[in-house]
């Protein structure tokens, strides 16, 4: 059976996991690959105008695969951590994918929900496996293999590889190499690692001689510490990661500046943004640039803003490093 994995949204986190699991089960896996102009355009024209850019891109990937495969693989991730949820759009994603194809494609969508305990998830994964094979050992073996590869992929991200080199397992260059300026590029995986919608921001920063720190590279312990300090806990799984990373960067001065990547009009981010901007002001006051990306974002304006931000950080750094006496005079 030919199974398609649309390369949007959570593909940027679990793509490796899904791909190796399905392949180990004997499925022929087709990925839609990098986002392209035509994927974006078709997604934008099919999706609701009110959807966030990330969902529009996802629609594009679904449409690109639709006719090439027997089934689309769109898991429903309800919760990946106790007492949290993903974004509502991820809860409804398989159904939206079905609507996008006009009910024309089979959608395989196991429901993963860590609120209902491990057993539920085990069952979900197992019955997913049963679609492809009747050998229980093979399913378990595939699960273990895929999980290992997934861990490895995540580990590579924390070491500072970008999505693509983490998938391929070879580090051409690291995002963070100890250059003079360091900027936190924080946001959801798909808002940071999708080279098309971010206009290769990470690569460009490297080209400007700037180190980039992603949320994955901020130690989880520091992130959790920040989250514990909040007066009301954040109940979105991935939002916790984003807010935790921003606040940790701010408190411990891990970076010289922060770029917060948001896709317009992201629901959870619109709320978290208020929290992050306020808390950042209170604890570290690290310069922060919030970039809200949508399908109309032009490359020119985007680059100008990044360059201006980097220049500002450079000047600031030089100024702060001048001897104190000189300023006092």
């Amino acid at each position: 059976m030919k199974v398609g994995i649309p390369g949007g949204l959570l593909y940027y986190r679990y793509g490796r996991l899904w791909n190796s699991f399905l392949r180990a089960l004997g499925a022929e896996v087709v990925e839609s690959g990098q986002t392209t102009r035509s994927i974006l355009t078709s997604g934008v024209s099919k999706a609701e105008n009110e959807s966030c850019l990330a969902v529009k891109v996802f629609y594009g990937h679904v449409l690109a695969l639709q006719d090439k495969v027997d089934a689309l693989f769109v898991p429903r991730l309800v919760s990946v951590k106790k007492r949290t949820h993903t974004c509502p759009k991820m809860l409804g994603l398989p159904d939206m994918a079905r609507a996008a194809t006009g009910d024309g494609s089979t959608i395989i969508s196991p429901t993963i929900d860590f609120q209902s305990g491990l057993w539920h998830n085990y069952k979900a994964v197992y019955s997913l496996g049963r679609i492809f094979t009747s050998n229980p050992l093979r399913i378990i073996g595939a699960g273990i293999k895929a999980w290992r590869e997934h861990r490895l992929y995540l580990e590579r991200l924390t070491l500072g590889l970008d999505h693509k080199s983490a998938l391929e397992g070879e580090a051409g260059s690291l995002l963070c190499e100890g250059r003079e300026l360091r900027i936190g590029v924080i946001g959801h995986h798909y808002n940071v690692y999708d080279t098309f919608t971010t206009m290769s921001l990470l690569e460009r920063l490297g080209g400007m001689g700037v180190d980039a720190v992603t949320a994955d590279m901020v130690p989880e312990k520091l992130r959790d510490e920040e989250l514990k300090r909040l007066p009301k806990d954040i109940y979105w799984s991935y939002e916790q990661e984003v807010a935790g990373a921003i606040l940790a960067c701010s408190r411990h001065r891990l970076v010289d500046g922060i770029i917060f990547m948001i896709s317009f009009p992201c629901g959870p981010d619109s709320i978290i943004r208020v929290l992050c901007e306020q808390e950042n002001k209170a604890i570290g006051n690290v310069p922060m640039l919030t970039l809200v990306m949508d399908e109309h974002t032009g490359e020119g304006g985007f680059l100008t803003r990044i360059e201006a931000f980097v220049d500002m950080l450079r000047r600031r750094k030089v100024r702060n490093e001048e001897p104190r006496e000189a300023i006092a005079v």
Partner: protein
Amino acid sequence: MKISWPHMGSLEFVMGSVFEEMGVDYVLPPPNSQRTLELGARHGPEFACFPLKTTLGNFIEAIEKGADTLIMVAGRGPCRFGYYAETQRRILEEAGYDFRMVPLEFEPAKIPATLRRLHDLKQGRSWLSLYRAIKFALNKAYLIDRLERQALHQRYLDREKGATTAALKRCYALVWDAGSYAALDGIEEEAFAIMHSVPRVEREEVKIGIVGEFYLVLEPFFNLNVEEQLGNLGAYVERNIYLTDWLRPSGERPVLGHREHASELLAMAYLTHKVGGEGIFSVGDTVLFHNQGFDGVVQLMPFTCMPETIAKSILPLVSRDLGIPVLSVVIDEMTGRAGVATRLEAFTDLARFRRRAHGREADLTLQPAF
């Protein structure tokens, strides 16, 4: 301590009744207005939900009127609503207002904290009196909801436009003045008599259902009076949400008479999981309305609302399968009244046409939403 809370449809009567009954000081925010919206949009985050902005505007206007304690319900999502109180507190504090935000959370782990907050709010009155006041207010809410429903059903028959709305206003005042259960019983009869006595004309009926995001369905000022507009266009209207659904979080819908679960089951063919907010009910109740012989469904959605965006992506499929026309109205601070009026009119015509052509295949091309 002067307590206040945001507007949401007839919520003011219910909350007001609780505090009146207990003899606790409160401030009613000025009625929703363009200014409310402007204040909210100015201070609110850029693409936050529309209701977050409007209720923020209510809070600011309430503080200006002397309120110092703001009540807001909070929770744990998955939607944004659970984080409203916290976000609004941050925004208002940064803007330099002086107040205390009291978020009421009803998940099991937060009950003790909520009880403590309620204890502060009741300012020394007994728990029993609070319980009695709430129970009485719920009775009023139930009556108001049934009156509103009556208005939805009969407005299209008005001999004079606006007569039903005026009658409803009189009923609100009556219910507001009721001081005891016995009085409430009498008022129930009187109010329904008032509603029934509105002069009517014979009219061909076309049935339109309203679904959508909770706040927007309940708040006539911000949904541009959709119910009234539809009624005046000649439609028998029903909506899938009443205030008491929210005040009694048991999954029961006392006014409509079915359980939420029934609607979820109907939605299953299209949306197989809850998505927060009213997403699943917007889908399920569209099916329900179709099953009940309605001729069209209007979906009300605040711009950027996540559950309704999902519903809106799925409703075309429902519409295609069942052949019921669905109009999604997206509302934010930029929405123009005139544009919505035109679309509602065209939609009512389409629904009427469909009713006449019943049995025959009518062309149900959807208009693009704006």
